[in-house]
C-alpha cells in the first residue's frame, strides 16, 4: 500500500486481554480482534483526527491503521479500491463530490442498517446536533435532484472535516479608515475596490480565480447568495441568467481590484496573500482561520476579524469538505461504524476540534473551552446556520461542467471575454452534457 503517511495505532494490542475485556463498553467487545484500516486525506482536520485515534483504541480496544494520502491520490486510490470484491478499507473519508460517484456506483453502505442496529447505534448520538447543511450536502443522497435529502433520500456518510465560507477582514485596516464590516454584497464589492485606494499596493478581497475548478468555486461562492443556481428544477442550465451574470460580475470586480497575479490564485495563494498582509479581506473556507493566527506563517495574526458571508438576495454560505463512509467491500463494516460514530459523536467531535479540526456539530461550536482556544468559533457556528447544501450540484457530470465553467470564467477574467457570451456558451455545452447523460429522458 503506497502511503504518504501511515500511522499504526496498536495501543489495544499491547494491553492485556483481560484488562480490555473489563474496561471496554459492551458494544465494542465483539470487535476486540479487529484492526480497522481507514483511508484519510492529508488535511489539517484529519491530522487532528489522527491525534485522537489512540483515545478511541484505548476506550474500545479496537486498533486503527491509517492510510493517509494527498487528497487527489486518495480519490484515485479509492476509485480503484471500491471496485474490488474484497476491499482493504473499513472506513473512508471522501471529498463531497465523490458522493455522487460512489453512491451511484453502489459502493457505499446505506447507514440505516447500522443506525437500526441497537447493538451498534449509540442512543446518545444526538444526530439532530449535527450541522444540518453539512449532513444534507455531504451525507445524504437519493432524495430531491438525486443528491439532496427528500422523501426518497438515504444517509450514506457523516460529515467530518466539512467547511463553510466566512469573511475574514483586517481589523487594523478597518479601524484605521473607519470602515464598517460589509454585511451585503453591495457593501462587499464597494469595499473590495475602496481598500486598494485607501491602502495603495493592497488588494481588496483575496479570492480564488485560477483557471478551472478554482475560478468555478469562486463564482459559485457568489452565485447562491445572489440568488442564482447552476440548474433549475428541470435540470435546465441557469448559470447564464441575470443572477449568474451578477455573480460573474462580482467575481470580476473582486479580481480586478486585487493585486497583480490574482487571476492565478488557488485557495492557498489567496490565503497566503491575505496572511502576508497583501489584502484587506478574505472570503473562503473556515479551514484557513487557524493559519492566519499562526505567527510563524502569518504577518496579520491578531489583526483578523471574522463575519458572516455577506448577504445578497439571501444569506447562503458554501458547504463542502469531507465526510466519512463505509465502503460496501469493507471487511469490518460494523466495527467501522463504531469508529465513525465515535469520531462524530459530541465527545469525538469536540476532541478533534480541540486538536484544530473543523467541528461537525452545533454543540461543539458552542463549547466554551473551544471558544476560549479559537475565539472565532462562535461566528463560524453562526455562519453554519446559513450553510447552503445545494450551492453546487453533486452529480456525476459535475466534473466536466465544473471544468468548462472554470475555464470560461478564467477567459472572462483574463481575456475580457464578454460575461453573457461566455456563460451562454457554458449553458449550451452543459445542456449537451446533461442530455448525453440522460437528464432529459423524461421530458
Amino acid at each position, binding site marked *: 500500500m503506497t502511503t504518504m503517511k501511515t500511522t499504526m495505532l496498536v495501543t489495544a494490542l499491547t494491553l492485556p486481554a483481560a484488562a480490555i475485556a473489563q474496561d471496554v463498553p459492551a458494544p465494542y467487545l465483539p470487535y476486540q480482534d479487529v484492526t480497522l484500516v481507514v483511508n484519510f486525506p492529508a488535511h489539517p482536520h484529519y491530522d487532528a483526527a489522527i491525534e485522537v485515534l489512540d483515545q478511541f483504541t484505548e476506550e474500545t480496544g479496537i486498533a486503527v491503521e491509517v492510510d493517509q494520502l494527498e487528497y*487527489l491520490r486518495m*480519490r*484515485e486510490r479509492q*476509485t*480503484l479500491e*471500491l*471496485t474490488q470484491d474484497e476491499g482493504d478499507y473499513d472506513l473512508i473519508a471522501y471529498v463531497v463530490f465523490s458522493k455522487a*460517484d*460512489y453512491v*451511484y*456506483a453502489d*459502493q457505499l453502505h446505506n447507514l440505516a442498517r447500522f443506525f437500526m442496529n441497537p447493538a451498534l447505534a449509540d442512543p446518545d448520538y444526538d444526530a439532530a446536533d449535527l450541522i444540518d447543511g453539512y449532513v444534507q450536502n455531504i451525507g445524504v443522497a437519493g432524495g430531491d435532484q438525486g443528491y439532496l435529502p427528500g422523501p426518497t433520500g438515504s444517509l450514506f456518510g457523516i460529515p467530518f472535516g466539512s467547511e463553510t465560507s466566512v469573511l475574514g477582514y483586517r481589523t487594523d485596516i478597518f479601524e484605521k479608515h473607519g470602515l464598517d464590516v460589509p454585511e451585503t454584497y453591495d457593501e462587499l464589492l464597494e469595499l473590495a475596490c475602496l481598500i486598494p485606494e485607501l491602502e495603495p499596493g493592497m488588494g481588496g478581497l483575496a479570492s480564488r480565480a*485560477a*483557471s*478551472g*475548478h478554482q475560478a468555478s468555486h469562486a463564482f459559485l461562492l457568489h452565485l447562491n447568495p445572489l440568488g442564482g443556481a447552476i440548474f433549475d428544477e428541470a435540470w435546465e442550465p441557469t448559470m447564464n441568467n441575470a443572477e449568474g451574470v451578477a455573480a460573474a460580475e462580482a467575481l470580476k470586480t473582486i479580481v480586478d481590484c486585487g*493585486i*497583480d*497575479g*490574482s*487571476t*492565478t490564485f488557488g485557495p492557498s495563494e489567496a490565503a497566503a496573500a491575505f496572511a502576508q498582509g*497583501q489584502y484587506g479581506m478574505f472570503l473562503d473556507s473556515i479551514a484557513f482561520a487557524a493559519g492566519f493566527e499562526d505567527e510563524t506563517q502569518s504577518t496579520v495574526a491578531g489583526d483578523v476579524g471574522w463575519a458572516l458571508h455577506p448577504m445578497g438576495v439571501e444569506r447562503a454560505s458554501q458547504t463542502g469538505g469531507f465526510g466519512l463512509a463505509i465502503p460496501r467491500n469493507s471487511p469490518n463494516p460494523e466495527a467501522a461504524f463504531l469508529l465513525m460514530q465515535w469520531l462524530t459523536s459530541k465527545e469525538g467531535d469536540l476532541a478533534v476540534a480541540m486538536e484544530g479540526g473543523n467541528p461537525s456539530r452545533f454543540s461543539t461550536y458552542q463549547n466554551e473551552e473551544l471558544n476560549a482556544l479559537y475565539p472565532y468559533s462562535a461566528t463560524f457556528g453562526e455562519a453554519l446556520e446559513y450553510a447552503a447544501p445545494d450551492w453546487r450540484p453533486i452529480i*456525476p457530470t459535475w*466534473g*466536466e461542467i*465544473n*471544468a*468548462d465553467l472554470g*475555464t*470560461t470564467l*478564467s*477567459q472572462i*477574467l*483574463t*481575456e475580457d*471575454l464578454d460575461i453573457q457570451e461566455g456563460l451562454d456558451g457554458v449553458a449550451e*455545452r452543459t445542456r449537451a452534457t446533461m442530455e448525453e447523460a440522460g437528464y432529459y429522458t423524461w421530458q
Partner: protein
Amino acid sequence: MIQAANRLTPYLFLAPAALVMIVALLYPILYMVYASFLDWNPSQRIGEADWVGIRNYVNLWSDPFFRESMWVTLRFAAVVVTLEMLLGVGLAMLLDRRLRGMAVLRTIFILPMMIAPIVVGLIWKYMYHPQVGIFNRWLKSWGFDTAPFLSDGTWAFWSVVVADIWQWTPFIFILSLAALQSLPQSALEAAKVDGATGWQTVLHIKLPLMLPVLIVTCLLRLIDSFKVLEVILVMTNGGPGLSTEILSLRISRTASEFRELGEAAAMSNYLLIILTILTLTMYLYSKAQEIRSARLRIAAEGES
C-alpha cells in the same frame, strides 16, 4: 534437415524473450485501443462498460476544448522544438572548441535537463511570481510595470515555452556536440584547404553531415514535447483560460476529473497516431538523408 534445425535454433532461443517483449509492449496499447471504444468510468470494471464503437473518436471533434488543446499542443511542439533546435545546435557550434574551462561550461549547460520536471515547473513558477518573482522585481527596480507572466494567456504560453527551452535545449546541445565532434576531420580540413569560410563550412559540410543525428534528436524532442505535462501542470494548470491546456493535461483531466476513461483513451490514441505518423515520416526522411550523408562522406574521404 539438420541445416534447417540449425537455422531455427537461434530463433527458438530468442522466442521467449521476444514474446515477453511483444506482450509487454503491445498489451497496454491494445488495452488502450479497446478502452477507447467503451463508455467506461472508473467506478466500473472494464467488463461492465458499454461498447460505443467509434463514438468517442467522433464526439471529440465536436468538443471545442479538445480541438483547442490539440491546437495548443501543436503550436507548443512546433515553437519549442524549432527554438530548441536552433539554440542547441547553435550553442554546440559555438562551444565546439578546445578552450580553457570549456568542459566546465558544457557541464553547466546540461544541468537543467537533469532536474525533475515538477521542480522545473516550481522554479519557473516562482521566478515568474508577480510579487516575489525575480523577473518582476527586476522590472520594478528598473521602473517598468510588472509583466503578467502567468496571468495572461499569451504571456503564459510564452512563459511555459521559455521554461521548456531552458530545460531541453541542453539535450539538443549534447547530441549536436557529440555529432560535431565525430565529424571526419578530413572533410573539414578539405573545406579549409579549398578556402571555405566558417559559415560555408557550417552550412555545406557540418550541417549536412550532422543531419541524421539532428533528425533523430528533433524527433525525440518532438515526441517529448507532445507529451509534456508536469511543467505546465505546475506552472499554469492549463490556464489562464485554455491558453496552455496541452493535450496531455486534457487527457489527464478527462480521465480523473471527468471520469471518462473511454474518451481519455480515444484522445491518447489520437496522440499516438500523430506521433506514429511523425516518427515514420522522420524515419523515412532520416534513412534517405543517411544514404545521402554516407555518399557525401565517402566522396569527402575520396577527395582527401
